[in-house]
Structures are given as structure tokens and as C-alpha cells.
């Protein structure tokens, strides 16, 4: 017996995709990645993760957790021991106190924490202000949470800092959130305590909530890092996001956390408990080990990054492309305007002619045009090969 054929007109599978998802562009990095994948002998300065393997004692802690049969769920918020260690670490490092029982949430990387924070606080149409060039996921994450992404351009002349005047100019009655990321991926910009004070004052005046992504905060090379959450009157209006990926070279563990006043953590936890349930227990055990005994590993890796940064800065200066000295993270954001090429053409030409991969600045927002991002989370031996190749490419332009 044949069922009657539906009379509904045929649709393409694409029509089933939600409108707000359809509007989200593919990551510019994605296309570039696929070209790089198809080539051999490429030296990549395009990698946004540490080149170090997770320190052995941290990996060993994960193995030990498996051996002891730690393979179940944990509390939705995460292991209490880990939350206690996080609260203590945040208190001693960033000088702001959170109650581990109600104000700390362990997440699957900062990516999940950011998504939770946005979904927990945004009503459709609420505006989220953020500084650009910035991490690739900010604008899409805001859109997926039905917010409106409002980019504030930062300039090399300002050392890619968020200027109070620029922030003020972007605020409207619909502005609800300011999203900060200092040290910044991709520019390596930082804000000093004094500069943060000015930003904080504007947030208080306009009743903005701050989401601060401090994933690179341990990797600060100049002045000690200050968190906006530690400034007077800011703890109550700040969601502090951090994780283990960069400082402890643990990207694949996918482990991060959020700290905020209890009602905000509770709201985030309600989304987290239905969507994720909990972060993987093995990663949580590894994270605990990182906080307890990983400090020296972090310092050692930071020293390596600092020396490589110096090496790359010198190399670009030598080839006539002086660039902003990054104060944190592990990226050099190099202005290539003197070459007359667009970011995309420069990166593509460099890849095809010299087999060196960098990321076009436009992957980090429109204000990244005229720049390329070079990661110095790359072994010095690789940088030593890459630098003359880039110089040769620039010399031919």
C-alpha cells in the first residue's frame, strides 16, 4: 500500500535551518584552514594554542583519575574540590573572592562559559558591546543568544586598547553587556588598572554588565594583570571567565570556569545542567592538579613565549614591518599596509609562495583589515625558518 504523497511543496534541507543561524558566516579561519591542510611542508604561525604538550604531572593526574575509576558525572557545578581550588586561585591571583559553593561554575572551556553567560542574560535585541579585532566567536555567540553584536574598533595607534570615549560613543539605551578580552587575541593588547578604572566607571554609570574573558591573563609580559572584577563596585556586575587551555597548555581537555554573583551563576547553571550536565570528570581532575602544582610550568612556558615574541618582533622590524609590541597572549598582530596588500591577499600569497601560514586579520573582524596574526606559540626552530621566508616574500612585494 502506498501512502498518499504530501501536498506540501518540496523544500531544501537548508530551509529547515533557523534564520538566526543562517545569518552566521562560516569562520574565515575555516576556509583558510582547508587550503593549508591540502599543502605539505607548511610552517604554521596560524595556531591559536600552545605548542607545548600539557605538563606531564597534569596528564598523569588524568591517567590516575581513570585508574581509580573516576568515570562518572560530577555535580553540575563541577567537583567541589576543584571549585574550592579555583576560588582560592582567583582570590590570590586576581584579588576578588567568590564562594565556591554558589559562585563558581566549571564549564567545557571558556567557549561554553561565554555561551552560557550570553544566553543567561540576553533578551532578544539586547546589545552586547565588544572591542575588535577580537576572538572569532564573540559576534556569532552573541547572535546565537539573540543579542545584537556591537563592535567597537580599536586601533594600533591606541595600542589596541579600548578607549573610554569609543565605549561611550557606542552605548545606546539597548546596551546591556560589555564583553572584554584583555590580554586580547589577536592583538596582545592589555589594559592597565588605571585604564580599567575608566572603563569600569562607564559601566557603573550606564548599568552595564561586564563579561570578561581572561583566558590569557597569566600570559602578561609587562605590568601585572588586573581584572576588572577586582575594581570597586564591579564584582556585582561582572561575570569572570577563565580556563586552563592557554596558561597550562590544556586546550584539548576543554576545561574552563565562570565566577559571578550567585544569581548569575545559578542562571548559567540551569542552562549548563540541561545542555552539558557537567564538564568531563577527567578534565576536572587534571585541572585540579594544574592549579595545585602547575605554577612553575606556567612560568616556564611564559618565559619561552616572551623570548619567541622578542625574536619575532625583531624579525619583523628587520624586514621593515615594525609592529605593536604585544603585552600579553602569544600573538603578533602585524600591520602589512606598507606592502599595499589586503590581509587576505598577503596571507594567501605568503602561504602559496613561501609555505608559511598566518591568519588574515579580517578573521578577527573588519577592523583587522591591513593586519595578519602570527602566533608565537610555535617552536623557535620553526620561527627561525619562517622569519626569512616571510622576509623573502615581503622583499618581493
Amino acid at each position, binding site marked *: 500500500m502506498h501512502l498518499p504523497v504530501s501536498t506540501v511543496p518540496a523544500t531544501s534541507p537548508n530551509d529547515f535551518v533557523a534564520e538566526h543561524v543562517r545569518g552566521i558566516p562560516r569562520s574565515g579561519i575555516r576556509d583558510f584552514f582547508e587550503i593549508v591542510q591540502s599543502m605539505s611542508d607548511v610552517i*604554521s604561525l596560524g595556531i591559536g594554542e600552545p605548542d607545548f604538550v600539557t605538563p606531564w604531572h597534569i596528564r598523569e593526574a588524568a591517567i590516575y583519575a581513570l585508574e581509580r575509576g573516576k568515570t562518572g558525572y560530577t555535580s553540575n557545578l563541577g567537583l567541589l574540590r576543584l571549585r574550592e581550588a579555583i576560588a582560592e586561585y582567583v582570590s590570590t591571583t586576581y584579588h576578588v573572592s567568590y564562594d565556591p559553593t554558589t559562585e563558581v561554575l566549571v564549564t567545557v572551556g571558556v567557549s561554553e562559559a561565554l555561551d552560557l553567560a550570553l544566553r543567561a542574560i540576553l533578551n532578544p535585541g539586547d546589545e552586547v558591546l565588544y572591542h575588535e579585532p577580537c576572538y572569532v566567536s564573540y559576534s556569532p555567540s552573541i547572535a546565537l543568544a539573540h543579542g545584537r553584536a556591537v563592535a567597537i574598533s580599536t586601533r594600533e595607534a591606541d595600542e589596541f586598547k579600548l578607549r573610554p570615549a569609543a565605549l561611550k560613543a557606542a552605548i545606546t539605551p539597548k546596551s546591556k553587556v560589555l564583553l572584554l578580552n584583555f590580554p586580547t587575541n589577536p592583538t596582545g593588547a592589555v589594559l592597565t588598572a588605571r585604564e580599567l578604572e575608566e572603563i569600569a566607571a562607564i559601566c557603573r554609570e550606564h548599568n552595564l554588565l561586564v563579561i570578561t574573558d581572561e583566558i590569557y591573563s597569566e600570559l602578561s609580559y609587562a605590568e601585572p594583570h588586573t581584572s576588572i572584577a577586582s575594581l570597586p563596585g564591579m564584582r556585582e556586575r561582572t561575570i569572570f571567565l577563565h580556563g586552563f587551555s592557554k596558561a597550562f597548555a590544556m586546550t584539548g581537555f576543554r576545561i574552563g570556569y565562570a565566577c559571578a554573583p550567585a544569581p548569575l551563576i545559578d542562571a548559567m547553571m540551569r542552562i549548563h545542567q540541561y545542555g552539558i550536565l557537567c564538564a568531563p570528570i577527567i578534565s576536572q581532575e587534571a585541572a585540579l592538579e594544574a592549579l595545585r602544582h602547575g605554577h612553575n610550568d606556567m612560568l616556564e612556558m611564559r618565559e619561552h613565549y616572551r623570548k619567541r615574541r622578542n625574536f619575532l618582533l625583531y624579525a619583523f622590524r628587520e624586514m621593515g614591518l615594525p609592529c605593536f609590541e604585544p603585552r600579553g597572549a602569544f600573538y603578533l598582530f602585524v600591520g602589512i599596509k606598507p606592502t599595499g596588500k589586503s590581509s587576505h591577499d598577503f596571507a594567501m600569497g605568503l602561504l602559496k609562495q613561501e609555505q608559511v601560514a598566518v591568519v588574515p586579520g579580517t578573521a578577527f573582524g573588519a577592523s583587522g583589515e591591513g593586519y595578519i596574526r602570527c602566533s608565537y606559540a610555535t617552536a623557535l626552530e620553526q620561527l627561525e625558518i619562517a622569519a626569512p621566508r616571510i622576509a623573502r616574500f615581503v622583499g618581493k612585494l
Partner: protein
Amino acid sequence: MDALLNLLEENALATHETLAAQLNTTPDEIRKHIKQLEKDRVILAYKAIVDDERAKRTHVKAVIEVRITPEREGGFDRLAHRIAQYREVQSCFLMSGGFDLLVFIEGNTLQEVAGFISEKLSTLPGVLSTATHFNLKTYKQQGVLRQKPETEQRLQISP
């Protein structure tokens, strides 16, 4: 120049230019510092770390725990120096615990090593006893793992 020493300990063949770029100084400064470090014997030598198994060398290596009598005035130093001078001795340390000197030796054959211990080391005045342990296999030497780390698994481009 602790930072310079750290870099040289990682790779003594790094060029002066590369070292200078990393440490924010000039190749000339680096050259001068290294000369000084060598002159002050802070840097004792530059050597390659060789995997004997891959180099198909059949050296015999052993570690010897040596108990000695400290001498009036000289303490352990004079006898330790005498032992350290032998060509067969690769390293020699004064230790705390159940014995005094830990001596690392290397020879071409078992006979050569045994001969050194029984004829030279044990017969030195002041040497009370020796306990010899032969190396069977090397996993890590001077901070370098024998096994090659797995090739890079990172994505070529990531945000």
C-alpha cells in the same frame, strides 16, 4: 645572564643573532657574554648528547658507589679529585647517605670497566669499598628523552 645560560643549555648551537633577538640585545653583546662565561668557567664545555644504542656503540656504562676515608685537612676533596682525573670517569659527585662518592664510568668492554674498578679504583689508598651497578638501558639522559615525542598533532590553523 641567567636567561642566556638557559637558552644555551637548551641549544648550545643557537646563533648569536637568534639569541640576541630573543633576549632583546645585540649579537655583539651575546658574543661578549659568552666569552666571559667561558672564561669564568661558568660554561665548562659544549657537547653533543648521543644515543649510544642508535649510534650502535657497545660501550659499557656503570655507576659506582664508593666509600672513602676523609683526610685530615683535605676532607673528601683530594681523593675525589684523584678519582675524577681518570679517563674512564665521566662524572663524580660527593653524596649524602650510605656512601660518599657516586662515580659514573664508561669503558669499551666489561673487562675494561672491571679492570678499572679492581686495579685502579679499589686499590687507591683511602677507598674503603665499592658497589658497582651496570646500566642496562637508557630512557632519558641529561634531560633528553630517548623516545621521540609524537609528531605534532595540532590543527594547522586555529582561532
